[in-house]
């Protein structure tokens, strides 16, 4: 019996082994800009896919501008090509002056440097944002685009109707990309007290993510940072404090949390090179609050 117990234990250990590997290797540092330490924890490989992530940004606050400025500092040493937006892009009205104050001004340096923004819609965003040129949504509430070996799917979690679900399933079923990343507003998993996990949405989208081998899911809505422990082989992030913050909102002893941060606003950087995806979460003041590497699972879609 003891032999069997040991084997079972070993089996359980193998099954639950995470593919997460903390970065310990090369670190690039630039301390020249404005005296602040801008530290990059990426290898910066030739031909890699480089992007940033922001969520719940459109407040027009001083803090949002600080995040925009910090992103520009990082862009100077790590020229990411594009930014994914997790929704709530413009809070409290959508007059032209709102787009100016809550988007164009905070990210002026990035926009001037031809960085493209790809938006998804949040619960504070009117659907006509899909036509705004700088959000690159091509008039669609849900869309797909590809960069290198990574396919990105922007979804509208505010209105996940049958048509969208069918579209997602159809697109994913024929997608042969090495990496599949979905991004949208409401988090299927979250340890925040304000909103938390969206179980209704999860019930509908998670089986599709699993079936078609989605690797990473990026969300916002809760105004905190959280890296969720991998769920059924998928890596979930909540990045919803690019313009608003709920201090102390992450539950202390959540079983979902791998790493969380709710003391300041933040943004994220990513680099995808081959089977590795490097990520770094950075606070408004430039502090690295989380970093690591996800190794792409070789598992095939289940059908």
């Amino acid at each position, binding site marked *: *019996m003891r*032999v*069997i117990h040991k*084997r*079972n234990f070993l*089996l359980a250990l193998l099954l639950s082994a995470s593919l997460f590997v903390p970065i310990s290797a090369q670190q690039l540092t630039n301390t020249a800009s404005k005296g602040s330490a801008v530290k990059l924890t990426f290898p910066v490989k030739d031909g890699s896919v480089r992007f940033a992530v922001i969520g719940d940004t459109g407040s027009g606050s001083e803090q949002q501008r600080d995040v925009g400025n910090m992103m520009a500092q990082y862009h100077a040493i790590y020229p990411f090509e594009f930014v994914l937006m997790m929704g709530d892009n413009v809070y*409290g*009205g*959508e*007059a*032209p002056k*709102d*787009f*100016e104050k809550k988007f164009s001004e905070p990210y002026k340096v990035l926009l001037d440097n031809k960085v493209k923004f790809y938006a998804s819609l949040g*619960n*504070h*965003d*009117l*659907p*006509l*944002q*899909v*036509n*705004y*040129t700088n959000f690159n*949504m*091509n*008039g669609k509430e849900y869309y797909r685009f590809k960069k290198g070996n990574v396919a990105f799917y922007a979804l509208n*979690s*505010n*209105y*996940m*109707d*049958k*048509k969208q*679900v*069918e579209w997602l*399933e159809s697109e994913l079923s024929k997608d042969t990309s090495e990496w599949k990343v979905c991004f949208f507003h*409401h988090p299927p998993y979250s340890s925040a007290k304000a*909103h938390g996990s*969206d*179980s*209704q*949405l999860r*019930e*509908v*989208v*998670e*089986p*599709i993510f*699993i*079936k078609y081998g989605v690797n990473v899911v990026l969300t916002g809505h809760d105004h905190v940072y959280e890296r969720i422990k991998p769920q059924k082989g998928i890596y979930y992030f909540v990045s919803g404090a690019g313009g608003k913050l709920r201090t102390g909102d992450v539950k202390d002893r959540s079983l979902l949390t791998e790493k969380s941060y709710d003391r300041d606003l933040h943004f994220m950087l990513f680099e995808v090179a081959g089977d590795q995806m490097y990520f770094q979460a950075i606070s408004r003041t430039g502090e690295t609050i989380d970093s690591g590497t996800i190794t792409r699972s070789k598992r095939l879609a*289940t*059908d």
Partner: protein
Amino acid sequence: MKCQKKLIIVLCALLTTAGSLVAQTNQKSALAPPIVVSPADKATIQSFEKQVKDYVDLRNKLKENTPKLSKDSTPEQINAFRTALEQSLRNARAGAKRGDLFRPETADYIRRTLKIEFQGKDRQALRDTVFETETKGVVLRVNYPYAQTAELSEMPATLLTKLPQLPKEVRYRFVGRNMLLVDRESNVIIDFMPDALP
């Protein structure tokens, strides 16, 4: 040793069975199976869909006369388009009133659907999703726009698969216990049902 071998075989068989069950669960469609509806309800849904189609035909005709909106628009162009479409709709539907689309039999069908969906273990999660929305400032008035500064309720994904399907121009939306039909682009309230949620 024989006993241990037998146990290993049993455990392997159990693991294989569990694995195939997981695979089957993963392979099931994300969309709920179609609900079996009575002939009377089927007629109600068809009638509602016809009302919605008539509305969409009208608004698309009006849209042809508003400034065109490209996928590369400026905020000024978006604003101009929304305002123009809103004005055209309000003028063309000046006599619109509550219950034009949510007729009594449709409202009854939708209320029954919501009642079924908002029960059981998921009831609280559904209610949380709907009631956490900050809708202060929204005036429920047919043919008037939904307040631009107010939050939009997330429509629970599981519920959307059960309600009558809408064309892309029209959306369901909740404000508290009330259910609205809203024009997607102009944000004009087409109709609403008070106390739709149980």
